[in-house]
């Protein structure tokens, strides 16, 4: 069980657009809400209203400040970065598992934990460089993103609802779900078009999920000439014309 299945044709995963993510945490909270009652539930919290509250979440949204980059003429900017399981093709979290609780599905590549077999040794969380696994001290077992396996195959739900909760909740459509093994799928086309990247590919885990880098920002040249002192000269139409012709 802990041995990896042969590479699947179908590789379900997420494509996350770092250009449009606004860091609202809707993916994280909707994930928590769905999975607390889903197959990964209960997604336990400890001392939720007390001092030092803690709990298991499958999505964490980090916010970074990117320094200006002179080489590519990119200004400084903030970047919101949702982090969750990448459903790697060769996940070490699966092969290190001593009990076979951690496994990768042969049919669609989703990486799951069988909580009835997990002994809570935490080794899988050590083996994951992406921080995708969180241990529940309350239940004594490891938890992880299921790619909402109980939603995406649920034929009791309307077709439109058969997507991971995080994808459906995203107000800016920064998250896309699909088959990254199929080069003709919408997500694969999106990755090709926008130059989607895998995180730390040199480690060899071959993540399935892709991140779309932020689109190049218009450079500082415009910003400096477009400042208030210039804006004073001429009316709106002139300034607009000036700006278009300069491109």
């Amino acid at each position, binding site marked *: *069980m*802990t*041995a990896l299945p042969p590479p699947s044709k179908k590789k379900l995963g997420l494509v996350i657009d*770092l250009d449009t993510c606004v*860091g609202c*945490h809707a993916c994280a909270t909707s994930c928590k809400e769905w999975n607390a009652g889903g197959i990964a539930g209960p997604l336990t919290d400890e001392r939720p209203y007390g001092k*030092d*509250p*803690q*709990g*298991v*979440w499958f999505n*964490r*949204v*980090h*916010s*970074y*400040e*990117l*320094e200006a*980059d002179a*080489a*590519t003429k*990119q200004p400084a900017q*903030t*970047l919101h*970065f949702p*982090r969750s399981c990448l459903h790697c093709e060769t996940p*070490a979290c699966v092969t*290190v*598992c*001593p*009990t*076979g609780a951690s496994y990768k599905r042969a049919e669609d590549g989703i990486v799951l934990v069988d909580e009835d*077999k*997990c*002994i*809570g*040794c*935490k*080794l899988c*969380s*050590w*083996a*994951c*460089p*992406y*921080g995708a696994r*969180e*241990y*529940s001290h309350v239940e*004594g*077992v490891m938890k992880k993103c299921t790619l909402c396996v109980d939603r995406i195959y649920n034929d009791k739900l309307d077709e439109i609802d058969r997507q991971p909760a995080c994808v459906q909740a995203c107000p800016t459509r920064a998250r896309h779900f699909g088959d990254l093994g199929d080069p003709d799928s919408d997500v694969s086309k999106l990755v090709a078009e926008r130059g989607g*990247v895998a*995180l*730390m590919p*040199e*480690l060899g885990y071959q993540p399935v999920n892709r*991140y779309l*880098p932020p689109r190049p920002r218009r450079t500082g040249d415009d910003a400096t000439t477009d400042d208030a002192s210039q804006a004073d000269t001429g009316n709106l139409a002139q300034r607009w014309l000036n700006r278009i012709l300069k491109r």
Partner: protein
Amino acid sequence: MNPALSVILFTTLSGTGYGLWLWLGLRIALGPRAYDFEPIGWFFALLLGAVLTTIGIVASLWHLGKPLRVWRAFTQWRTSWMSREGVMAVATLAVAVLMVAPLPIPHEIVQRPLAALLAVCALGTICSTAMIYASLKPIPAWRHPLVLPGYIGFALLTGGLAFAALPQPTPVLRFALPVLLVLTIAMAILKLAYWRAIDAKPLPQTRGDAIGLPNRKPSVFERPHTEANYLTKEMGFVVARKHARKMRVFSLLLFAALPILCIALAIATSRPWPWLDIATLCAICGAFLERWLFFAQAKHLVTLYY
């Protein structure tokens, strides 16, 4: 990494136990006249090894969320070093039991092969424990080539001192003490080289790599949560890293300097007691500190996100 007491106790004590069995196995298998040992002497060695490994394994069960399911951990030996370790530990124990079991064949015939098997199984268990750590890519300090020899060396050192401290014939001691002396010096050199190496090489990946933008310089603007979580507690352990230098000195004093002094005194006075007992206790305490540092100082790649 979070230095969990259970895991440190486990690796230190069971390391000592398997080291002891490794020496015992070698001595019976390769020593002159296989059964010309005081039977009591090696029975105690076998027993002490069993006690140490058992305490270690029981301690390791505290680390598990569901210890009652531990039998499942023997199933995945094809891919998991932790599973291999479990299988090897049970195999070693089985051989140790066979060595004292009443067998239908005269003991002289099976003693040497069984002892050799005990040594091989003990070494296998020690290597499997080391490989649990040495196979984890996200923790570069554990992937270092000196980690495996370090684990074997500490098992040989602490187990060897414990073995030598048990009643031994004088010729055996005359051979063992210089070997232990060299081994202790070698371990001090190995650990110094390891610490130098991990100090010189921080994480090979940057935060930019971690978020898929290797050419940008990101700094944390806002963390995803205000309190600690499992990841920051388990992987982002920082407490007392600043005291690491002092801990290294204490560890070196305990596992190397004092044992070297004790072994020298044992050679000079040609009396093992109490010098080897003191040396053993010091070395185990030193190994314990060293293991604490091994965990506390190892940085996990997930810390890049924070």
